[in-house]
């Protein structure tokens, strides 16, 4: 299984660390909403198909990534920086052109 890191390019899965279900919504730390905490800790969609996941490229650039992986085929249909629209690589690119 290969994951194409937005910074490093395609790499073997051995370089990555799974960091869990990407659908989880962590409640505010001070929240006393027990249902929300219960859902965060225990509730999982467990789909047979596309699944939102968080991975870290721990054996590479160490960026945290949002990955969509098909749990039946292991096909990776999308990879993006978990931080959101990470501009670092892009800025780096723009700088090089100037």
């Amino acid at each position, binding site marked *: 299984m290969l994951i194409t890191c937005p*910074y490093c390019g395609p790499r073997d899965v051995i*370089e990555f660390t799974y960091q869990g279900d990407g659908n989880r919504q962590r409640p505010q730390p001070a929240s006393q909403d027990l249902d929300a905490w219960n859902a965060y800790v225990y509730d999982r969609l467990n789909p047979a198909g596309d699944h939102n996941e968080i991975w870290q490229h721990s054996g590479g650039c160490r960026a945290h990534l949002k990955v969509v992986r098909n749990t039946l085929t292991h096909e990776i249909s999308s990879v993006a920086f978990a931080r959101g629209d990470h*501009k670092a690589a892009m*800025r*780096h690119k723009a*700088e*090089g*052109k100037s």
Partner: protein
Amino acid sequence: MVERQSPLELAPLELELRTGSHGDFEHGIDVILSETRPGSILQLAAWPGQEKKLIAGIRTVTGLALPDGAGAGSTDGVRSVFGFAPGKFTVVDEAEGLGLAFANVVTPAIGTVTDLSHGRTAIRIAGPKAEWVLAKFFAIDFALPAFPVGAGRSTMHHDVFAQIQRTGADQFDIYVFRSFARSFWKALCHASEEVGYEVQ
């Protein structure tokens, strides 16, 4: 700076850093292994939005311009720089004291400078079979079009994290944790036996 000793030189010396020709060298030496021992190995990281200033600072201090793209870098043979992660760069100098040179350039508002000179060991592999030997270690593309001169890559060999910069058409500098350097060096020697190697 505190005087450094190479981890490859710790006793028994003859086992690790045996200068001379080894392996199947009767048919020619296709790989040369050496420890480059740079005086300064730094990691620079920009806060989000400060990357441009950091890159400008690297140019001010080292005279090296970072080319286009993720993982891009450059080297002039004395100083080297390459990106190894978004907004993060490894900067190397033959001379000591590069961290001090950055002190007034990379301000706390721009990012951080971490001196890893004592924490990394720099190993150079050069020669016509350098790509071949490294391809046995790392699952990345070492072909020149995919990995141009100056560019850097973060990857690992088993669990040994490595930063690799191509510093010539058939030359690579590998930065590994000092504590893993001896075992990594040994493995590299074993992997080079089939092509014939020389330790310089």
